[in-house]
């Protein structure tokens, strides 16, 4: 049995008296796409914050490539190969698109040269994302859809093993969402990444992932292949009145 | 026993002044995120204007208090219009706004303090008002100190009453909890912000007027009170006006007792030490709710 690239064991995150994530397990291997869905407030983003080291779990363990990184700061996770995007794009507003991408290469990416040879140059990353023509523009000046791509580019520049995508398709048009899904598959197939993809709009995600995990009120409600999870009565109930209507176009 | 009564009462008297200064500063920070470090300068201005009214126009400080409050309120409107309105418009990001308004506050501090030095000179000044002695539980206090304390308490409690009982006051309190609340209750923030800034300065001015009845005044008197107000706010909670009242009184008493038990030269070391410790260890409980 091989060690998973990323493994979360009974992760619990608390804010004051509120338990945002309550004993969630997750295994992600290289070259797979795992989806996480759940109604608003299910703890999806908080779970990502734990997976990327931005919050420290109250209990539970996090392993990256078999190494226990629980309690380590976020840059250690980045250097171990965990890259992420944020729900609202957090690009460096005053840097150009090319400079923003270079940033990741200079820090976590530099440390990970030995692990990953791919995407070693800024132009290669910009080409991969189709952002080459925006290279010299300030990050603040590109469209929100392109800022999302840039965020992925900044993440890829860290030469990750695992890519965490937080609602990268939110607010995009149908055609743009299709493009994002294709990009996710290319990250898996061409770069060999394990991708964890959070999305609130469920339909997009179910079509694109191999395995899906459903969070509800901080707990894991179901996990499995998308077609089975979509039929799960518990899942349907959790979504009724929240995401069900908008999720099924 | 006599000594303790004396310590507590004189601590409460200074504490009342601290509370007034801190409440005004807290109102400004809580509502607008302006940490106005020039707050103490307006206390000094209030003290000098009261002194001037007493000497030149022979007005009792209490007769002069209402016009003083109105005057400093108007000064507040003007300062807000000239400095902070533009800053709020050009700097929407809260963190950057806070840092910049802090620097503007330092600029104001230089300007107001040195204008006062230019006009009145650096000498200590004072006047005699209600200097007779009143005895409480066998301990003598000068009447002006007791009157100043009573006035500070009335003003402080009055402000809290206004904030709790009136619709506008409740709206202000709601907005100190969440800025978006203003939109919900339909309050015009562009009018409210200058007004609340003005109220803050008026309170500082009142504190200065009361101080001038008791202590000698100088153009550099304001700065320590700004620092004390920051400490009081850190203790009583940022955004909590009632906390500032209680925190001010408490600090006054603690300081009086602490100075008696240790050496007075340790006072500033201890104040700053406590202040930093509170901020470092409980920033979320005290600076942010």
């Amino acid at each position, binding site marked *: 049995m091989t060690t998973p690239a990323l493994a979360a064991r009974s992760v619990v995150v608390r804010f004051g008296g509120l338990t945002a994530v309550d004993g969630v397990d997750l295994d992600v291997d290289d070259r797979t796409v795992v989806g996480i869905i759940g109604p608003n407030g299910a703890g999806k983003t908080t779970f990502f914050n734990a997976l990327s080291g931005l919050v420290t779990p109250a209990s539970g363990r996090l392993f990256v490539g078999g190494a226990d990184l629980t309690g380590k*700061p976020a840059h250690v996770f980045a250097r171990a190969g965990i890259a992420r995007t944020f729900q609202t794009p957090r690009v460096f*507003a005053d840097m150009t698109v090319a400079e923003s991408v270079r940033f990741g290469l200079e820090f976590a990416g530099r440390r990970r040269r030995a692990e990953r040879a791919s995407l070693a140059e800024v132009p290669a990353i910009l080409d991969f994302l189709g952002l080459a023509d925006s290279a010299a523009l300030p990050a603040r000046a590109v469209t929100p859809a392109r800022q999302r791509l840039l965020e992925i580019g900044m993440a890829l520049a860290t030469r990750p093993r695992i890519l965490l995508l937080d609602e990268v398709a939110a607010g995009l048009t149908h055609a743009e969402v299709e493009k994002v899904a294709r990009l996710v598959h290319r990250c898996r197939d061409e770069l060999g990444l394990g991708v964890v993809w959070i999305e609130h709009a469920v339909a997009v995600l179910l079509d694109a992932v191999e395995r899906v995990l459903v969070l509800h009120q901080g707990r894991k409600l179901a996990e499995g292949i998308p077609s089975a999870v979509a039929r799960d009565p518990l899942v349907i109930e959790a979504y009724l009145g929240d995401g069900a209507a908008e999720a099924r176009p | 026993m006599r000594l303790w009564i004396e310590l507590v009462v004189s601590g409460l008297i200074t504490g009342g002044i601290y509370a007034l200064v801190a409440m005004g500063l807290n109102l400004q920070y809580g509502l607008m*995120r302006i940490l106005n470090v020039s707050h103490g300068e307006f206390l000094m201005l209030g003290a000098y204007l009261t002194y001037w009214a007493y000497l030149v126009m022979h007005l009792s400080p209490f007769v002069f208090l209402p016009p003083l409050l109105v005057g400093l309120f108007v000064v507040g409107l003007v300062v807000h219009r000239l400095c902070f309105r533009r800053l709020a418009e050009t700097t929407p990001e809260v963190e950057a706004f806070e*840092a910049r308004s802090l620097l503007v506050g330092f600029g104001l501090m230089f*300007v107001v303090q040195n204008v006062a*030095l230019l006009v009145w000179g650096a000498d200590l000044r004072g006047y005699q008002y209600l200097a007779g002695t009143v005895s409480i539980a066998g301990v003598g206090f000068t009447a002006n100190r007791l009157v100043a304390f009573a006035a500070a308490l009335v003003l402080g409690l009055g402000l809290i009453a206004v904030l709790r009982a009136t619709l506008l006051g409740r709206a202000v309190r709601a907005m100190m909890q969440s800025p978006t609340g203003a939109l919900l209750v339909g309050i015009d923030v562009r009018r409210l912000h200058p007004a609340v800034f003005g109220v803050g300065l008026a309170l500082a001015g009142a504190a200065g007027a009361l101080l001038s009845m008791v202590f000698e005044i100088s153009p550099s008197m304001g700065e320590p009170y700004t*620092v004390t107000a920051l400490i009081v706010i850190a203790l009583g909670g940022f955004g909590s006006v009632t906390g500032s009242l209680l925190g001010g009184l408490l600090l006054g008493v603690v300081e009086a007792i602490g100075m008696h038990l240790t050496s007075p030269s340790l006072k500033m070391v201890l104040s700053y030490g406590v202040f930093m410790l509170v901020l470092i260890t409980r920033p979320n409980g005290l600076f942010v709710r």
Partner: protein
Amino acid sequence: MARRGLAAVAGGAAVAAALPWLLDDFLVSLALSCLMYVALATSWAMFSGATRYVSLGTSAFFGLGAYVSAWTVAAAPWPVVIAGGALIAAAFAGLAGLAILHLRGTYFAVLTFGMSELTRHAVTYGEKQYAGTVGRVLTVAPSSRTVYLTVLAIAVAAVGVAVVVRGSRFGLALIGIGADEQRAQTLGVPTRRVKVAGFALSAAFAGAAGAAMAVRWTYIDPTAVFNPFIGLQTVLIAIVGGPLSLTGPLLAALVFSLLAEFLRLQFPYAYLIALGILLIVAVLYLPQGLAGLWQTRARAERPTAAR
């Protein structure tokens, strides 16, 4: 860019080094105070300009450096005194940074201000308790030319280091922290270490400047060397000059030392009022500082020239 910058610094330094032999005492002392503020403002901007952690603690580092100088100048060689001031200030900033650099914005500014006041009162108290006096008279002091050249060397080092830092990964990390600290961390920047190192590095120059300037005054006390005004004027110069530029603070330091020398003695209050107004105007209308003026113009002119 870095090479051209360093060449300009070297040229400027060569001219400045000749001044004590060319000018009268008054002008040399003017140049000295200008160089001191160049060192302070440049090193301040290196950390606070890039990271947007506005520090009001420069006077603490300056004062510590001055006291290190006062304590050791009679016993130790001059370069050791200066290095001691720099090291003590850097070590102090490193420790303080560990405690307060997790707080941003107003908290950080207020805490650094508190830190410098606390240091001042603590030194006052310590001197009273253990030395019996508050002030110290410095009887042994190097010649005024030595002091001038030392401060020049510190200023040149500050500018040189600032140029090198800008072109380095360390400098990039500082900029990333200023732009979005959490984002920078998720891209692999060890933010805490970078912040503490940057804060300490910047403090080292203030400490060195304090150590060098202390002997100029012959008598020092905490009120003078821990004067919060030193920290505020440093921030003012850096902000008026442009917190993200190198030449801006240089120019602003020159303007302010001229203003200070000519106005402060005759019209001290008017000088401080002018400073206050300048600070407000700079914050309100020149967020990029004086440097913003020519940078915007350069940007506006570029397309025209290309056509």
